[in-house]
């Protein structure tokens, strides 16, 4: 177990940097609004979703509105449907670990597991170690921030949460380099390699311009589904003709 964690830990270091810092910021923000550290810790354990947790701070200090909370949570979290859809295969056969793997599939954890486990590793154990380490960073950061947020040198750390953006950018770059390499080796045409990343980037950007920051992800997801389906139909058509 310890040696597995030693192998997994370096992969999770970018998430460590981002989660500890964002967790501290979250715990401190909850504290500043008069919400007890126990609540912050509970939320980071059982909700475990950064964007939603920050949005909830405001809700928790207003009057009780269960339906609004449900709608807000659905709007912010809907993107997780995509992550689960693409992990259906990989998480199959992970046994008793599966419920936790599904529960803890955040943006960052997804980015670390979506390309599979390294060769020679037991996939279920690898995914579990990544997921557990990531959540422990988040919870640790939250508790740290809630208990002593005002004492920490947050100014020195300002901007370290950019490691999340960098993580996603680097993984996208890595995936694209892989796909282009496969295209060079003749495994698939280049436009097949570039279709998914171009669609993901351009559709999200377009949706942001059309719908604004609050709800653009739903539009982007719907658009992607539609165009992916059209693409799939075209490919099927070509296969049938060939």
């Amino acid at each position, binding site marked *: 177990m310890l040696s597995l964690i030693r192998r997994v830990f370096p992969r999770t270091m970018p998430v460590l940097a981002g989660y500890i810092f964002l967790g501290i910021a979250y715990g401190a923000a909850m504290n500043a609004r008069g919400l007890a550290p126990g609540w912050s810790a509970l939320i980071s354990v059982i909700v475990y979703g950064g964007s939603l947790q920050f949005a909830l701070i405001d809700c928790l200090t207003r009057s009780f509105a269960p339906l609004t*909370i*449900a709608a807000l949570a659905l709007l912010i*979290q809907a993107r997780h449907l995509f992550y689960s859809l693409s992990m259906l295969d990989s998480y199959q056969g992970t046994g008793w670990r599966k419920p936790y793997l599904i529960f803890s599939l955040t*943006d960052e954890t997804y980015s670390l597991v979506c390309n599979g486990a390294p060769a020679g590793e037991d996939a279920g154990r690898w995914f579990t170690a990544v997921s557990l380490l990531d959540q422990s960073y988040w919870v640790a950061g939250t508790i740290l921030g809630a208990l002593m947020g005002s004492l920490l040198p947050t100014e020195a750390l300002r901007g370290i949460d950019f490691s999340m953006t960098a993580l996603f950018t680097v993984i996208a770059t890595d995936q*694209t380099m892989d796909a282009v390499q496969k295209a060079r080796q003749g495994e698939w045409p280049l436009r097949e390699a570039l279709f*998914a990343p171009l669609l993901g*980037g351009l559709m999200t950007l377009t949706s942001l311009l059309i719908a604004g920051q609050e709800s653009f992800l739903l539009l982007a997801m719907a658009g992607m589904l539609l165009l992916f389906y059209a693409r799939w139909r075209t490919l099927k058509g070509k296969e049938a003709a060939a």
Partner: protein
Amino acid sequence: MNSIQILVTILIASAVTILTRALPFWVFSGGRKPPAFITWLGAQLPRAVMLMLVVYCLRDVRFDGAQQWLPAFCGVAAAVLLHVWKRRMILSIAGATAVYMALIRVIV
């Protein structure tokens, strides 16, 4: 809100989050094999989602002054260039984050 209302609010947020993460697994559980399109889509999504997340992270970037967008732009560019050059994940991420953290302090 009293404590019970806070607790219920948290439980709702948790339940909806779990729903969004678990729904595809419930729908395609047991003997039901996902349709061919879903299997194909699942293989395409990681490459589409990663750029969706990059845009998602940058959604608050404004363009009404260099200090608003230049650090993020250079940070992303550094991540891509470092990775194409050395292809060492930790190096690319640490380098890009350092570029960003330096620029938000230098450009005011």
